[in-house]
């Protein structure tokens, strides 16, 4: 198997919002649960599922997004970095 690089920009293929606290091993951040968006992003060679750093009120299928990262708590304490996608052209990294 080979590793291949993927585009860092794509188009929202579908999305929704997680509006209630998921079960463990999902771990709430220090401030407690807040709703977050998730979606599928069409990068061209593949469509990936991901956290979305765009509020549900702004998300729409067909929207241009670009790769970013966010930190999520792990079940064993600490955090891990996961991909997220923000509106194309956003400068700042989303920290949610």
């Amino acid at each position, binding site marked *: 198997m080979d590793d291949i690089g993927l585009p860092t920009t794509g188009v929202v*293929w*579908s*999305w*929704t*919002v*997680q*509006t*209630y606290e*998921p*079960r*463990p*091993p*999902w*771990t709430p951040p220090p401030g407690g649960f807040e709703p*977050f968006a*998730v*979606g*599928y992003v*069409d990068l*061209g*060679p*593949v*469509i*990936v*599922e*991901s*956290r979305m750093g765009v509020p*549900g009120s702004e998300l729409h*299928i*067909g929207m241009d997004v670009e790769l970013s990262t966010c930190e*999520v*708590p*792990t*079940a064993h304490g600490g955090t*891990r970095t*996961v991909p997220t996608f923000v509106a194309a052209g956003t400068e700042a990294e989303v920290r949610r």
Partner: protein
Amino acid sequence: MTDVAIIGLGQHDFGRHGGDVSGLDMGAVAVRRALADAGLSWEDVDYAVGGSKEGKPDALVGHLGLTGVPFASVRNGCATGGVALLTAAHAIQAGEADVAVVVGFDKHERGAFRTSAASYGLGDWYAEAGLLSTPQFFAMKTHRFLYEQGIDPDVLPLVSEKAYRQGSVTPSAWRRKPLTAAEIADAFPTAPPLTQYMLCSPSEGAVAMVLAPAEKARQLTATPVTLAGVSMRTRQFGSFEVFASWLPPGDLVGPTVQAAHAVFERAGIAPTDVDVCQVQDTDAGSELVHLVETGLVASEDIEDLVRAGAFHQDGHLPVNTDGGCLANGEPIGASGLRQVHEVALQLRGDAGVRQVAASPRVGFTHVYGAPGLSACTLLTRD
């Protein structure tokens, strides 16, 4: 190969029953009712199959009788009931059994389904990132379907409205209160585009049926229902399933398409022959997606048909006349059998106030489960 008939139907009410009623208790009640309906006793049973996510179906022998009967247990996500039926039908077809009992039951805890990432081949990252949630899949699949078909999301409340109206005339259903489309649309948006009344909830319930070779069935009952076909398929490459962390580009064809095609082909029946049906309505959008994926309805027609009431009890193709998963909740082991139970009642003419007119002769059921499998049945009346 021997033809299979359904000669007994039994069910325990769906809903929330409290701590004194276990999954096994409900399963035993359903089996006893199905046997009574068939005019048989547990001692007559020479093969049994049970399906449950939370429970151990073969433990039912402790409730029903230690006859030593072969009793297989099945776990296939929300498709469990359909696969249990398939397994029992195979035993009859192979000549291994003359009287087979199929039972499905579950008693889920409150709240969303508890799942394990590892059991789906996913790492902890998937759950920690907040992706391990079944409603997300159904919301996103519905969202994409509406977009691709150019369908206005305001059809979704109409699907739920039908479900709760049918639930109000189904004594065994959980949700008995009708709701208007406006109440459904204005409810809390649990997983956009779905509001809380557009998503089924885990619940409790049990269904059982008795199968026999078609020849024997005619001696035992005046109203045998023939199991004209039953099929099951798992996903192939290029399908969009629950907990899919990635998808290939291009057309995505799921196991519902393949399972439905297989059952129509096996039975020699066309989708246009179906008079009454059940399709998996995990959410309001899924009912529409599955009507299209099974080949029952063309994608270009579905929006107009929903608005015209074509899927109502008095419509051209009644769908989920007992309120489906939306009104009954989703006890995983039981739902696939609840679908067959309702369609069989319709074919017998025993559905009471829910009876569809014009003597239905061909019924169809479809169930879908994570991580991507589907089971379909075709039932016919002599």
